[in-house]
Every structure is written in structure tokens, then in C-alpha cells.
């Protein structure tokens, strides 16, 4: 594990950004094929989000997190034991194409930065949760389900007091199940899955039943449903409180009910993390089924930028096991492009990962359709905050469309939404859908924020102290 900025190689064949399932699987394959491989991840350990803290988990009872989580252990161990180099707590804040070929990568470790180069770059930055802009969602005491799950996995923390889990999607059931295993009690699960979604999901049911998702999902839902009050068909939600959340008010069948709450966990699916691929200049398309932007990739994961691949949930949401297969496929293609294996070997070795991947992708369509969040939860009204960083509300955004803010970039210039440190990670989808809805066009036509590096803020002092040449890397003194 590389823990010093100076120990990073100045140049590498393949730089993989993200040590989740895709990055880990890819690094093992790439290393085996003889590629000089460096994996960079901003977290303190490998595993990404789904396998968070897999190598150093404080939760001793394995039954709490479940078998699917622990499946990541073998993947991580294999990657760490390979000849691939791993850098932890390494934040990549910029990736830009060099003039001829290859990429330059800005990396920050422990408050210092330098630029390194790579022939090929693989973005394995995974997914993030879809924004869930309900009134009051910025109150302390409200977290995303994924965030709460990270607190459990990496720190053995569970909420104290009254817990309500709200939203839709498989993660709701998983975290509820993990919490029950850990001895927490949950006041209610407010399921916002629109009843009408079942109709659209039915055609995909056979593939789902045949997929690995089905058995797991059913088991979780049954176990949780037996012990927790579940309210389904929730039509509206809002959080109330002054300095922190005190209650959650939900509407079902036209009637409003209020539940006192200490910790409210929200989730309505995950979407690909596109900030890096966008900032580099890759083309993206809008996926109407998953209601998200995805980078354009071929079936080897190659984007519209040469030598730049995306692997894992960053290509499109399909889960941890599919992510690992995408990582393997992309690594094989990189090995071929860099002359380590011929095309026949690449194709032959990619066959098994592709078959596994297809099974997961087919089964996924049912989940996408069933758990498609209702419009009301994606496109808020009134003074609901849309951009958390700059505190811009839905009604202000709506009112600005007729002034010439006809797309997310113009809106950014007018109202600053998307200009805060999160760079649109928590507001971009909402802003795009909101404007598209106001204008009666599709998000594909509208476009998305034109993101720029640094994709994570960098201290002025850190930038100022960056070595100019490789020779001065060793000589840098923090002024």
C-alpha cells in the first residue's frame, strides 16, 4: 500500500481510479497480464463503497453484514496480493489528456499534490445515491441509506433512538436487514415505490426470477417485513424540525401521517458517478430507463476519449458482481491495447465475464422498472432545496428558466447551483430534470453541467507547492 505521495510512480501503464469491485478485479487481471498498474482510491482502505472496510472491518459478527458483503474479501485480498500498486487516501482531482497520447493525473495525498502520467486510465469510481430532495432533507439527523451503511460497515455505528427508513430500492431492505441483525429497532419503512411501476416491471420479471438478484431480494424483504412496520405506496414525504429532524410526515391514500424520528434514512436508487468522466470530456447519454447520465462506452468499456475506460457501476448500475466483471473486461482490453495480449486471447478470456455480466444486466431491468422513483420525488416543488451547497430552491430554479436559463449550464451561471464544492453530485440530476420538465423536453436534449477539474477542491497552498518537474518532486518542502 502506497502511503506517500513521493512513492507514487511518475508514469504507469494503467491507472485505475477507484478500489471498489471493478477496480479491484481489474487490477488483478491487469497485473497478471504484465501491465504496470496503479490503483488510486480516496478512502483509507480498499473496497469502495459496497465493500467498505472489507480488509479492516470492526463488526465481528459476520452475520450482521451478510454473505454478499463478505464476498468482497477474496476479491480484495487477491488484488492486494497482486503486483498492482495500491495508493490509499489518494484523491484524484484532475485527469486530462496529454497532447499526443496518455493522460496526466493530479493526485493529492495528505495535503500535498503532484501530477503523474499514465498510458491508459480506467475510471472505476462507481456510483452515488440519487438525490432525494424532499422538504427538509438538509436537516441534521437525515442521511442517505448508503451513508448510514458506511457508518455501520466501517465503524460499527447504528442510529440511536427512533429510526425511519424511506424511499425505494433494494438498499432499503438490505440496510434494514443489517440493522435488525445488529439489534437495532426500526420504527417504520416508508416505501415510495409507485404501485403503477409493477405494470411496467412485469415484462422483465422472468429474467429477474432467473437472475441472482431474486432469491437474495426475496429473503431480505420477507425477513424485514416480518419485524418492521412497512408502509407502501407513500405518495409524499417531508421532514420537519428546527435544528435537526424531529418528525417525518408522509402521505398515503391522500391522508397525512406524522412519525416522530431521530434518524431518517433516505434512498431512491444509485446512479453512475460521472464527475470525472464529464470533466475529462467524455460524451454522455441520458438513460431513460435508469433516469441518469451514463458515459458512452463500447463493450470493452472504452469511452469517447482514447485510452480512457469506465468500469463498474460508473457505466450503468448493475451491482457489485457485475462491476467486477466489467472491471475484468476493461482490463483485458487495456492489456490488448498496450500490446500484452493478442485480440484472440482477449476475446477468449472475456467470454466468461461477459456471460456473468449479461445475467446480471438482464435481471437488473426488472429492478430498474420496479424501483423507478416517482416524478414527485425527483422533481420537487416550492421551497424545497435542490442545490444543497448553494441553498437554491426548486421555485427559484423554475422562475429562472424564462430568464434565459434554458439548461443546467446557464442555470449554473444565474443561480450558482452546481458551483458549490459537490460540483452537482447532489443537485445535477434534479436540476436537469426540473429544467427539462419546465421546458417540456428530454434531459438528453437539455444536456448536463459542463464539469471542470478539479473534481474535488484543492487547497491553494497545495497547488502552489506542487512540484514543477519530476526532479523537484523529491525536493519539495512544504512552505
Amino acid at each position, binding site marked *: 500500500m502506497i502511503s506517500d505521495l513521493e512513492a507514487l510512480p511518475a508514469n504507469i501503464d494503467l491507472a485505475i481510479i477507484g478500489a471498489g469491485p471493478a477496480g479491484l478485479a481489474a487490477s488483478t487481471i491487469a497485473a497478471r497480464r504484465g501491465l504496470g498498474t496503479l490503483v488510486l482510491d480516496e478512502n483509507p482502505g480498499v473496497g469502495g463503497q459496497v465493500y467498505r472496510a472489507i480488509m479492516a472491518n470492526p463488526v465481528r459478527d459476520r452475520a450482521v453484514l451478510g454473505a454478499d458483503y463478505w464476498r468482497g474479501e477474496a476479491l480484495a485480498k487477491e488484488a492486494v496480493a497482486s503486483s498492482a500498486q495500491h495508493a490509499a487516501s489518494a484523491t484524484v482531482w*484532475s485527469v*486530462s*489528456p496529454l*497532447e499526443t497520447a496518455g493522460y*496526466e493525473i*493530479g493526485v493529492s495525498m495528505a495535503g500535498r499534490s503532484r*501530477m503523474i502520467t499514465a498510458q491508459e486510465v480506467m475510471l472505476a469510481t462507481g456510483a452515488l445515491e440519487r438525490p432525494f430532495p424532499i422538504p427538509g432533507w438538509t436537516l441534521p439527523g437525515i442521511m442517505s441509506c448508503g451513508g448510514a451503511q458506511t457508518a455501520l460497515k466501517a465503524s460499527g455505528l447504528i442510529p440511536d433512538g427512533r429510526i425511519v427508513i424511506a424511499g425505494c430500492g433494494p438498499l432499503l431492505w438490505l440496510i434494514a436487514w443489517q440493522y435488525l441483525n445488529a439489534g437495532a429497532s426500526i420504527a417504520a419503512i416508508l416505501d415510495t415505490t409507485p404501485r403503477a411501476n409493477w405494470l411496467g416491471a412485469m415484462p422483465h420479471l422472468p429474467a429477474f426470477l432467473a437472475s441472482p438478484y431474486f432469491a437474495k431480494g426475496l429473503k431480505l424483504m420477507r425477513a424485514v417485513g416480518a419485524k418492521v412496520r412497512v408502509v407502501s405506496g407513500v405518495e409524499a414525504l417531508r421532514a420537519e424540525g428546527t435544528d435537526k429532524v424531529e418528525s417525518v410526515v408522509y402521505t398515503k391514500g391522500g391522508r397525512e401521517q406524522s412519525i416522530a424520528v431521530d434518524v431518517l434514512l433516505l434512498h431512491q436508487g444509485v446512479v453512475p458517478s460521472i464527475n470525472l468522466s464529464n470533466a475529462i*470530456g467524455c460524451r454522455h447519454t441520458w438513460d431513460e430507463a435508469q433516469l441518469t447520465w451514463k458515459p458512452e462506452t463500447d463493450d470493452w468499456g472504452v469511452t469517447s476519449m482514447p485510452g480512457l475506460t469506465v468500469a463498474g457501476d460508473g457505466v450503468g448500475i448493475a451491482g457489485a458482481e457485475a462491476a467486477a466483471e466489467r472491471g475484468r473486461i476493461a482490463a483485458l482490453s487495456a492489456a490488448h491495447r498496450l500490446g500484452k495480449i493478442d485480440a484472440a486471447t482477449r476475446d477468449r478470456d472475456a467470454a466468461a465475464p461477459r456471460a456473468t455480466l449479461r445475467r446480471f444486466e438482464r435481471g437488473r431491468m426488472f429492478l430498474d422498472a420496479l424501483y423507478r422513483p416517482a416524478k414527485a420525488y425527483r422533481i420537487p416543488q416550492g421551497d424545497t432545496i435542490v442545490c444543497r451547497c448553494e441553498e437554491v430552491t426548486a421555485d427559484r430554479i423554475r422562475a429562472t428558466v424564462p*430568464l*434565459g436559463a*434554458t*439548461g443546467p449550464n*446557464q442555470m449554473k*451561471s*444565474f443561480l*450558482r447551483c452546481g*458551483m*458549490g*464544492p459537490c*460540483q452537482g453530485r447532489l443537485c445535477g440530476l434534479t436540476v436537469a430534470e426540473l429544467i427539462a420538465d419546465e421546458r417540456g423536453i428530454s434531459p438528453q436534449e437539455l444536456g448536463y453541467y459542463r464539469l*471542470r*477539474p*478539479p473534481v474535488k*477542491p*484543492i*487547497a*491553494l*497552498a497545495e*497547488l*502552489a*507547492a*506542487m512540484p*514543477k518537474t519530476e526532479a523537484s518532486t523529491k525536493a519539495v518542502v512544504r*512552505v
Partner: protein
Amino acid sequence: MTETADVIVIGGGIHGCSTALHLAMRGIRVVLIEKDYSGRHSSGVNAGGVRQLARHLAEVPISVFSMSLWEHIADLVDDDCGFSNHGQVLVAESEPELEAFRERVDDLKLRGFIHEELIDRTELKKLVPAVSDQCPGGVVSRRDGAADPFRTTQAFRRKAVSLGARIHEGVAVMGLRRNGAVWRVETSAGAFEAPKIVNAAGAWADRVAAAAGDPVPLEVIAPMLMITAPVPHFIDPVVILRSRKLSFKQFANGTVMIGGGYRARPYRDENRTVIDWRQLADSAKTVWELFPIMRSATIVRAWAGIEARMPDDIPVIGPSASSEGIYHQFGFSAHGFQLGPGVGALMAELVATGATNLPIAPFRVDRFKDGLAATDH
């Protein structure tokens, strides 16, 4: 269907929109064609500096005229454009530099221009308390300031439309030729015809100029800017350091913008730029050395606009040297924003009456020695 007008303006940046507005104010039927959207390029993403300070002598008269429009900008475009004028200060870092500034200020005064004022160390420290103690003085232009570039460009666009200008965005010019008594502009959305054309096409203006028979050595550049997270207010005027390539401004919301002319790599046919971090590191180092109070600021974004530069760093303004009815308004070399309101008025006057009172001879399109067309970058 061919759309007709009295004047076709090519390019919807601040210059195109300003010209369109001033033409519309004269009751002239104008069509503006913009390949992306108004303010998409340099006009919308520049540092927003509104200055007469430190301009090339040839630009001073038009800059002073444009300033008079800025000071009543809300009357012109029904929007204050975020314009604030706390002055702009050019900081001298050494005695020889200050001496050079003194000579310039004296020269300007002889020519009748009094907007630049030499200041000593004490006055500099008063205007810019955060500047390092080593600076012996500088030049201040007290009426200067800054505005919101995107908002300004949009305001000009909106006002022009409200007065009857027809603005077509997302429409690219594909060709330009004579068709009897008019010019015919072929675009991705059909043909437009008018007896007069204004070429305000920014970093792409050399192509329009070439089609008009006026090849020019335009260089495509991409000046970079950085902006920080909000910091408590500590500076009022905009600050420029010439020798160190630094310009520095703090907005009302506390964010600080750092510019100065370091360049990214432009790809003008892809609407794309690639940031050069080593140069930005130099820029950050300059800020760090000169403004100790900024030492713990955080950079949240860097970007670059696609801009046109002429070899002598002054624009091309005036009639075509070879084609009747075509006028040029481009090449502002990274300092055209402040000139937008005034040059638009000037251009409208030129187009409408055939002449202008402002001295534009230095900006002739045929002043370049070899007159070569720009090579693509």
C-alpha cells in the same frame, strides 16, 4: 425559406449582442446567428473585469466611451449586470516597475486621459490592505470594477430581442457569399440574407473574415481562471499584477477569482479546453506569495474560455477591406468584455451611417503585415 434582415450579426457574445441591441435601438432589422448559446464562450466565462486601466493606448478612447455606458448599464439593458465599481489597481512590485507606470500615467495625462492615477505605498496599502508590504505603489483607475459576464451578455441579448432583434442560437454559419445586392449566409438552419454583415464571431472570426476576403492571423487562446470557496471579505478593488500575470477579484459572496492570462490548450472545433495545471500552480504560488491572507483558500474550480488574440493584442474593428457591407468586430485578445457596450454602439453607428466619431483606424482589418489566415489549432 430565406430569412432576411437589414443586418446579420454573426456571433452572440457580448459584442454581437451589444451590436444587435444598438442596431435594434436605431430601428434597424437585425438577425443574430450564434452557433452555441449567447455567452457560451469567452463573453460568458471571463473574469468580468470592467476596466479602462492598463489598456493599449489605441483602446483608451473606446474604453472610456464604453465606461460611460457601463455607469448607466441598467438604463441600457434593464439589468445592473452585477456591475460594481470599487476601482481596479495595478500593483507595482518593484521601483523600476513603478517608474514605468509613472511614465505611462504622465503620457496618458498629456493626451487628455485622466482615469489612471499613480499611487504610492501608503495609498496602495489603503486600497489593497491585503497586498504584501514589499510593493512600492501602483496605478488605480477608480471608476473601474467588474460585472457578471454571463448575466451581462444575457441582458444584452434579452434587451435586443425585446426591441425586435431575432436571435437564432444553436445555428452554425456554413458559408458566406454574395447574392446580387445582398450577402447570403448559409447556416445549419437555412439561409439568411442581408445587405450588411457584422462579424463578431470571436475565436472563429478568422473564418468569417477569410470568407469576406480579409484573411487575418488570429490566434485561438484559452486564458485560464480559478475560483475559490467563499472567504471572509478582505478586498474591494480588482487587483492586477502585470509582470506576474495575476488578476484577482473577490465577489460579494466571498469567492475569489484568480486569473492573469495563463493559457490552457484550446480545441475550438470541439468547444473544449485542457487545463494546464503546472501553470495554475505558478499562479497559485504568486497569490500565495503576494497575499498571505489567501494562504488557506481552497480552489473549487478552474476553467478556460475560447478566445481570439491578434498579434498586436488589440482588436479588429471596422469595415472589411475588400467586401462592401461587411464589418468586423473581433479579436479582443482577452480584454474585450468592458469594451462590449461601447463598441456595439460604435459598430451600430458605423453600420447605420457609414462613419463613427471614435478613432478606429488602429483596428483596421488589413493592418497585419503578411495577412495570413490563421492556422487551425
